[in-house]
């Protein structure tokens, strides 16, 4: 009996198990426990949530290993952590800590403005952000085992997440309707490998799980993303920057499961107290837009 670790099936399969769930950003063990108790399927351990990264500025990097280990010790659900785009050493460090998933994330300051991490070489699976289908397929080609559509992290404004889910969905639907001999040019236009383009055209979906992230702050936001075809949602600043995190977290979990039942979403939305104070994406100067990072 030969046991093989780190296969594409094991990496992509891990993401399949997260479907229909909410992954929450947490900065300490206490928040991680609140997230687990609220029904999160995983937590993302990071030092500063995107709203604070945005407010404080400076270079945002991988979190302190001590802090990640404390969160791992506090909860029984999977723990994810972020590495900077292209920073394969941070990724190696996170793998050695035994985190369950690495997010190669535009929320941190990129370390490489041309190359992303070669993710095939790792045993640990990666999730990467994408604003369109070509970007998603380039990340999958580099070994990403899960994709999350990018929103504008740390704003509480869901419009960018919406735009990118529509974009990815629309491009998939367009491929599905093409003649086979048109897929070569489609691959050229998407700047993505032909084999992956053909696979998407045939199956009508990405070869990996598609979550959504960035700007999701309410149960209705989560349900909106699910109805746009997301397999699940990441909620970053939206929970622990709100008035009542435990209740809001549980409410977002309920709305994600029953996204197609407005009554449940309505009940989940009652009496949650203050949502995070938002920033309109349109008011952000272009250099401060995180979702435009990644190539």
């Amino acid at each position: 009996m030969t046991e093989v670790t780190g296969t594409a099936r094991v990496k992509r399969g891990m993401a399949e198990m997260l479907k229909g769930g909410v992954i929450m950003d947490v900065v300490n063990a206490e928040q991680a426990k609140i997230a687990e108790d609220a029904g999160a399927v995983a937590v993302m351990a990071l030092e500063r949530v995107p709203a604070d990264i945005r407010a404080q500025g400076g270079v945002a990097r991988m979190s302190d290993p001590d802090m990640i280990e404390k969160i791992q010790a506090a909860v029984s659900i999977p723990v994810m952590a972020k590495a900077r785009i292209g920073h394969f050493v941070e990724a190696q460090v996170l793998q050695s800590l035994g985190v369950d998933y690495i997010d190669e994330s535009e929320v941190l300051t990129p370390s490489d403005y041309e190359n992303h991490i070669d993710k095939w070489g790792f045993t640990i699976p990666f999730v990467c952000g994408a604003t369109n289908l070509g970007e998603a397929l380039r990340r999958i080609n580099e070994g990403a085992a899960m994709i999350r559509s990018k929103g504008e992290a740390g704003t509480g404004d869901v419009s960018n997440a919406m735009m990118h889910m529509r974009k990815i969905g629309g491009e998939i639907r367009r491929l599905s309707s093409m003649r086979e001999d048109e897929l070569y040019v489609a691959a050229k236009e998407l700047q993505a490998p032909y084999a992956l383009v053909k696979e998407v055209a045939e199956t009508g979906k990405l070869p990996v799980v598609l979550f959504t992230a960035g700007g999701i702050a309410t149960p209705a936001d989560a349900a909106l993303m699910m109805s746009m075809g997301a397999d699940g949602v990441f909620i970053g600043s939206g929970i622990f920057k709100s008035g009542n995190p435990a209740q809001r977290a549980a409410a977002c979990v309920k709305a994600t499961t029953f996204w197609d039942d407005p009554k449940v979403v309505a009940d989940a939305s009652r009496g949650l107290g203050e949502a995070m104070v938002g920033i309109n994406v349109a008011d952000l100067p272009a250099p401060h837009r995180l979702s435009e990072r990644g190539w």
Partner: protein
Amino acid sequence: MKVGVLALQGDVREHISSLIACGVTPMSIRRPVELEQVDALVLPGGESTTIAQLSEVFGIFEQIKDRIADGMPIYGSCAGMILLANEILDAKQGQKSFGGLDITVRRNAFGRQVDSFESDIAFDDGAANLVRAVFIRAPWVERVGAGVRVLASVDEHPVAVRSQTIFATSFHPELTGDHRIHRYFIEEVARPALEKVK
């Protein structure tokens, strides 16, 4: 035969595809009224803590527990195995399970995601008939009660067990496109039990 898949969270779609391949009519179950319509139930892979919690919040927890006690055929993979176990080790504080299967299960027993693996294993004495098994942050069984039969093991840890109408695997047959494990549940576990009731 109407087979439900508990669809609160997890890899529901994959189980539904496997069940269709076995020739039954699967149905997603989230509400108590939906559960009433099915003869058998599958608990998917996912996060056992999340699924247990949502079952309670949406008022289906006790009903599933009662149906299991009444002999409804049920199969759980990975998180599903944890939800069927009478006793859970390394659980979240206060974590509940539907129970019914007299085993003690250890969560994430094979380790974290870096240790997740796939392997060919012999199922139900079918040494010549190997099954590709995918283990993802998988549990194993540490104690089996009287009347629980071990159908497969990895390094001497039971990973597939059965007691009457309750069947559980700590691996994910729904991820491989090989439907023999689902067929075993339908043909060897569910169908004989349902025919006996008739």
